[in-house]
């Protein structure tokens, strides 16, 4: 510590540059992680934040709500499986909707569930859950886009059909689905919207996309899902997390961001590693002198690791400060949040990476020959 901290104090400019570079990279990583979380939330929030622990798809639906239609009697068949506390239908479809205030038409997703049953949104921020048909809970990020509390959203009907009006009575966090404004409504409201947009099928029953299951308190959702798949014909049941991970685009998005984030982590390691190597080479004479007068190699290695830690920890601190500032200035349409545990875990990984990246410098320090102090060029200012 004695040597490490004094060197940092006497080389403030150099270390400030190093810390600044690491800080910007850490901010980039944290921001990208937030971006990934937001994007995945926009893709799958509606599915991830509904109350069902298990989602039951048609077996041939390839694990997508858009491709799944289950017969109405499947709901009762699923409800009879041991470990299922409640089962209910879940409808999902994209409609053309007109937000409140006469705004332009846009695509919006409706989730239909049996009021009082499973499938209701679990992240209510304002207002209440729907109590009757014609009411809905919308994704809070769209509140300023005509989906605000008390506003009325209209499902644009086919020519000649009556429009379906939905009054927003609640706003929930992370409820978007397929990156579109999303409203949770009753099954009857969903069916009305379906018929309004497709009057030709007015007499046909509106079948659910899936069945959502709330498991019994002691039951493991994974076990219940396997049991449902085994006992109910023509379905594939997934836990909520599996269903979210299987949603279209999620795996590809994770993979793309994974590559970008991986590269960013590698760059942090390289920046710290190169910085320490340059530092070690530049002070090779001083290190040889210290070894010559009896400094153990371990002491010099500890000094180096202390500097690597300070560099990474201070850089992480700057990254967190920048992320916090960005979060404070983010818009409701694209919120940036500081997820404490995730940020702490990322920073811990980065510090560990920085310590690992100092391996080359540590090797150089361990190989310093103290005899160089007697034979080598001068250090300390004299040529």
């Amino acid at each position, binding site marked *: 510590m004695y040597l490490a901290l004094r060197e940092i104090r006497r080389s403030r400019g150099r270390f400030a540059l190093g810390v600044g570079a690491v800080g910007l990279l850490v901010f980039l990583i944290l921001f990208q992680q937030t971006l990934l979380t937001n994007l995945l939330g926009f893709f799958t929030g509606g599915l991830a934040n509904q109350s069902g622990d298990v989602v039951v798809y048609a077996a041939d639906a390839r694990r997508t709500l858009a491709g799944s239609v289950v017969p109405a009697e499947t709901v009762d068949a699923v409800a009879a499986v041991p470990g299922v506390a409640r089962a209910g239908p879940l409808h999902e479809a994209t409609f053309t909707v007109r937000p409140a205030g006469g705004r332009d038409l846009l695509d919006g997703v409706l989730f239909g569930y049996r009021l009082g049953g499973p499938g209701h949104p679990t992240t209510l921020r304002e207002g209440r859950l729907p109590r009757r048909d014609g009411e809905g809970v919308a994704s809070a990020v769209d509140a300023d886009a005509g989906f605000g509390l008390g506003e009325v959203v209209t499902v644009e009907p086919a020519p000649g059909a009556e429009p379906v009006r939905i009054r927003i009575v609640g706003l929930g966090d992370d409820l978007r689905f397929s990156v579109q404004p999303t409203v949770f409504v009753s099954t009857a409201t969903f069916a009305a919207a379906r018929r309004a947009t497709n009057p030709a099928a007015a007499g046909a029953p509106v079948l659910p996309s899936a069945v959502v299951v709330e498991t019994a308190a002691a039951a493991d959702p994974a076990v219940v899902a396997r049991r449902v798949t085994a006992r109910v014909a023509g379905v594939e049941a997934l836990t909520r997390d599996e269903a979210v991970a299987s949603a279209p685009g999620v795996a590809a998005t994770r993979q793309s961001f994974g590559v970008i984030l991986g590269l960013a982590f590698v760059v942090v390691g390289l920046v710290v590693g190169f910085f320490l190597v340059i530092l070690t080479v530049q002070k090779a004479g*001083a290190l040889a002198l210290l070894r*010559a*007068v*009896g400094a153990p190699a371990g002491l010099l290695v500890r000094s180096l690791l202390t500097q690597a830690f300070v560099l990474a920890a201070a850089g992480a601190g700057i990254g967190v400060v920048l992320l916090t500032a960005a979060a404070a200035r983010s818009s409701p349409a694209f919120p940036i949040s500081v997820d404490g545990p995730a940020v702490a875990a990322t920073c811990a990984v980065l510090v560990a990476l920085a310590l690992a990246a100092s391996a080359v410098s540590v090797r150089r320090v361990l190989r310093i020959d103290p005899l160089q102090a*007697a034979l080598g060029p*001068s250090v300390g200012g004299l040529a």
Partner: protein
Amino acid sequence: MASLELIDVRKTYGSGHTEVVALDHATLTVGDDEIVALVGPSGSGKTTLLSIAGGLLSPTSGQVRVGGEDITRYTNRQRTRFRRRRVGFVFQQVNLVPFLTARENLLVMPRIAGRRDRAVLERADRLLAELGLTEQAHQLPATLSGGERQRVAIGRALMNEPALILVDEPTSALDTRLGEQVMQLIVDEVTSRHTAAVIVTHDPRMARFAHRRVEIVDGHLHAPAPA
């Protein structure tokens, strides 16, 4: 007891017909309180002898004792510990840690030995005062003059109260007047502490400051000549 005993020490580099003999059957004894000037031309083996005496190098054969301690077969770890406790070095071209102040360059010695008590702070301040460096105590080496840097290096060599001080060409980067001042300072500091010293120099004028003069040519030590 002698502070330094080199008994039939030989140091070679390489082997076979590429073997170079840096030190050839050198025998030297330096008594307590004695200051020996080791004089010889460049490449004569002065620095090799100094490095072996200070535990920076192991001899190929022969025996090395410092303050009665036989260091001939010491491991690297043992030699590191020996250098920390028993020897003070002043290297040829003033060697200071560039990011430590003059005072910290002295304090680094007890620090690496794990000492951080008040006594070492007082000793460092006392040494700086004796060397006339009180006002420069908080300056970095880059802001000190050549003579001041040499004095800081002398202070560092004395900091841990060593049994033997080894000084390699202390005046090579200084003019004659400053060189003589530094030599006198070394002699005064070493003598007042009853410590032995070996001072390597190729300048015969500087050798007269020592109690005894030993010449080295092509790795051979010659019989002591009058200083």
